[in-house]
């Protein structure tokens, strides 16, 4: 299978790998939201953390992904894209954009879905921690 240069670059040099602290530290921190998602189809696990400033912008993001290179590249790209965005702006990122940017082959599109889900889950976690209204994304999963 042929992969484009962007996906290979992100796979070999993933951006923003890591966490903002231990699990118990992160639980206490109200400025950090965590999204933990998985894909039962392939057994990949992805965790994405966002650090939000007082103006409601994502000032930093980290990820860890145990999965294939496409999942690693998708989450690496996602962390780059959400930095500097407001929560609402970050929530607008769609897996189709990741697919296009990385030229993901059709059999790896689920990796981009995982990254989109991780962003949404991290935003929801941040909102819950801070008593902000949360959005129901379930309707977006029911398509076609």
């Amino acid at each position, binding site marked *: 299978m042929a992969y484009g240069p962007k996906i290979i670059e992100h796979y070999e040099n993933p951006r923003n790998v890591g966490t903002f602290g231990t699990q118990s530290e992160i639980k206490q921190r109200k400025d950090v939201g965590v999204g933990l998602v998985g894909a039962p189809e392939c057994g990949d696990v992805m965790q994405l953390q966002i650090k939000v400033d007082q103006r409601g912008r994502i000032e930093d993001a980290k990820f860890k992904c145990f999965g*294939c290179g496409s999942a690693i590249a998708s989450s690496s790209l996602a962390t780059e894209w959400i930095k500097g965005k407001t929560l609402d702006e970050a929530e607008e990122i769609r897996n189709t954009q990741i697919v296009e940017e990385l030229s993901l082959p059709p059999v790896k599109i689920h990796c981009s879905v995982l990254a989109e889900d991780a962003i949404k889950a991290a935003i929801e976690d941040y909102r819950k921690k801070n008593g902000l209204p949360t959005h129901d994304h379930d309707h977006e999963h029911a398509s076609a």
Partner: protein
Amino acid sequence: MVSPQTRRVNPDRDSRFRHLEPARGYAQAMFDPFASLGLERRFDLDAAAIQRAFAVRSADVHARDASEDERDSTLSEINRAKALIEHPESRADTLLLLLGGPTRETERSLPDGFLQEMMEVRQTMEEEIEAASESDARAVSDKWEVWAEARRAGHEARVAAMFREGCSSGDQPSRAALRAIRRELNAWRYIERMIEQLDGGRSGGL
């Protein structure tokens, strides 16, 4: 970049991508590999019984007075049947679909706390492998393979018990029972993935 308003594409739910993984899900539900091999439709089958059934069916096909095309077609079918039920995880997946259970795409749930546990285990495993010297790395990897094999055995035993219980009355298992089996199978897939990656290196490629 495409417009942010572009509708999300999920290959598992979008008919344009449905043909990409025909081995899992839709097409499978229409083909009964147990019947094709002349086996009872159940999970508790040992490898020897499957191999025997395959050998008997293969011999039948070769002995049959049929055209080459017909023979090839039947052989292809029984090869496919064997491939689907040879591995216990695939056999469970196939049986669940034949019983009308949910696909991985429609029932994505996992046991409570499972993803968090997987994240922590994978993290610990990676740290230990990275910290080990070249000569010790294999031993560390082997240790985790033993761990994963034990988890695999646990999932297999639970799935076997769930199928036995669900099918014990001879009736169709309840929807709740079928969903519970899928949840167990979803967790099992993560363990299989871990074993594949331990066998194949860091992440199993792109």
